[in-house]
């Protein structure tokens, strides 16, 4: 039936959607090709915690039937997607990478899932993640680590390593991630893919199991900037069920990705995010990409954000404080695991035994840090002071955006590191997010996109592009222009250079 078959999994969402609209290939064929790919490679990669084989085929058939009946379908109809296991999907296991939720099937859809269904996207399954999104490597999943398709000995980033690995391994052209301190962008950087953290409040958090409510944001993961834009447009927009959802029109990210013209755009290079502490190959590829931006007609200036130096410290007080409160809901009473309920023990004892058995090391560490930071006597010195630093970081951004339309930095200080290297060294692990964290504290929008392979290890490097709140379209304008120039130079997307699995 089709000339595309055989390499359906190598195609972008845009190309697949087009081919389906033209009748060159059916949604069922596209879905089956990806499910086959998952059976073939996911034993090695372990991107998925749960695969929806029969259900996905059923949804795809429904799309084909409706298309055959002449119905007009959306731009992503029939395109497969991998969903991070932190978003609820009715009747489908949602574990957040934790034993405490093993086997739990939520009785409702998150708004993101509701919108994906409305867009006729075919959800292939739930992807692995650091437990409750706490981590930068996906090693803190209770279900074992995900492996980087570029090198199976290395981490795929985190917390959304399952989502980034799924698209890098061609198991799905699209994925949903969530980003609290970099969990979409850092995985994108280390897997050579594109990831976007929308403006805080841009995508509904309803049905997103909360880590830190003032920082969490769901967003698109893809292999191209245009694919990310289409997915962004599908999931974004006001939702009355999330009181922090922004009641304003979604910036036209698809038009921006199509325009891809950055002549005259002012780009601010953040002085504090680079140099010392950044791997040589990361700095090299980043600098080369900055030159490309200049060649494309952008005006690059240096900006200074002096308080970013304190962002990591502020973040690791604010996040644990919010997380320790949010995770109090896992008490073994209404859902998930319950341990030690022998008819004799009290609710308090059962709770403590349940949480001890159900949570992993990183979750316990952060809950205790948060409990400490919020306790009376320490509150002002820790949590209160961190909130003030948050204000200063937001002001740094505001000043920088007076001088520039977007800001840039390397997404992560290093390329993908080896599994096991930092798993029991919390501070070393936290440093992976040093460049992404300030964005979450201020609520801005940011993208990571691939800018090459580090010469010393042949692993992907990402550039971070940051826009003011509700100017998400600028990310796509700049990202698409840079991507086009780099693809022209390389002759293909960077991901095409990943070794065969």
């Amino acid at each position, binding site marked *: 039936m089709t000339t595309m078959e055989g390499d359906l999994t190598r195609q972008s969402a845009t190309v697949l959607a087009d081919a389906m609209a033209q009748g060159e290939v059916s949604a069922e064929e596209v879905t089956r090709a990806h499910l086959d790919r998952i059976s073939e490679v996911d034993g090695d990669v372990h991107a998925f915690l749960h695969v929806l084989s029969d259900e996905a085929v059923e949804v795809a058939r429904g799309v084909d039937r409706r298309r055959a009946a002449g119905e007009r379908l959306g731009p992503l109809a029939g395109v497969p997607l991998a969903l991070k296991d932190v978003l609820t999907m009715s009747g489908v296991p949602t574990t957040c990478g934790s034993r405490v939720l093993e086997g739990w099937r939520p*009785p409702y859809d998150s708004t993101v899932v509701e919108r994906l269904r409305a867009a006729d996207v075919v959800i292939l399954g739930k992807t692995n993640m650091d437990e409750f999104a706490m981590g930068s490597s996906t090693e803190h999943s209770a279900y074992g680590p995900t492996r980087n398709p570029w090198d199976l000995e290395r981490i795929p980033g985190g917390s959304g390593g399952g989502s980034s690995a799924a698209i890098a391994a061609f198991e799905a052209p699209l994925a949903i991630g969530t980003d609290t301190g970099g969990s979409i962008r850092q995985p994108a950087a280390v897997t050579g893919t594109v990831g976007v953290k929308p403006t805080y409040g841009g995508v509904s958090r309803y049905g997103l199991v909360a880590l830190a409510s003032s920082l969490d944001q769901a967003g698109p993961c893809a292999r191209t900037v245009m694919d990310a834009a289409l997915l962004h447009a599908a999931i974004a927009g006001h939702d009355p069920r999330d009181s922090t959802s922004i009641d304003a029109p979604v910036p036209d990210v698809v038009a921006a990705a199509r325009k891809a013209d950055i002549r005259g755009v002012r780009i601010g290079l953040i002085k504090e995010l680079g140099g010392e502490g950044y791997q040589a190959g990361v700095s090299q590829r980043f600098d080369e990409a900055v030159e490309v931006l200049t060649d494309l007609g952008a005006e690059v200036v240096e900006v200074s954000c002096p308080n970013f130096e304190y962002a990591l410290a502020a973040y690791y*007080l604010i996040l644990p404080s919010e997380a320790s409160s949010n995770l109090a809901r896992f008490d073994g009473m209404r859902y998930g695991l319950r341990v030690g309920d022998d008819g004799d023990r*009290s609710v308090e004892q059962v709770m*403590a035994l349940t949480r001890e058995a159900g949570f992993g090391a990183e979750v316990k*560490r952060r809950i205790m840090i948060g409990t400490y*930071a919020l306790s009376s006597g320490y509150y002002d010195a820790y949590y209160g002071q961190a909130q*003030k630093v948050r204000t*200063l970081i937001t002001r740094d951004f505001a000043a920088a955006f007076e001088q520039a339309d977007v800001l840039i930095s390397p997404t992560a200080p290093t390329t993908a590191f080896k599994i096991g290297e930092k798993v029991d060294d919390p501070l070393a692990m936290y440093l992976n997010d040093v460049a992404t964290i300030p964005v979450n504290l201020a609520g801005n929008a940011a993208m990571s996109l691939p800018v090459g392979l580090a010469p010393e290890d042949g692993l992907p490097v990402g550039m971070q592009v940051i826009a003011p709140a509700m100017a998400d379209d600028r990310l796509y304008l700049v990202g698409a222009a840079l991507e086009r120039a780099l693809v022209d130079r390389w002759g293909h997307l960077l991901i095409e250079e990943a070794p065969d699995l």
Partner: protein
Amino acid sequence: MTAITRAEVEHLARLARLQLTDDELDHYAGQLDVILQSVARVSEVAAEDIPPTSHPIPVQNVFRDDVARPGLDRSAVAAGAPAWEDDRFRVPRILDEE
């Protein structure tokens, strides 16, 4: 200088309802100390007159129309409960012996 002792970690674990083992207490006490000393850097910033930010986008109270809407499906909620009896969540006793 230590920011936190093993005994304090034990107290924190109790507050956080985590029944940690002795090995865990030994392990976490050192790690939490390192983390807390690191994050204490926030105190280096002179921020006395700076207002705190609790939320990136300032929002006022958000209300919806006071219209009834369906809640979650009862049987689906029951299916996810660790224990369910007589159409209710069954929970352990709430009072300790003493």
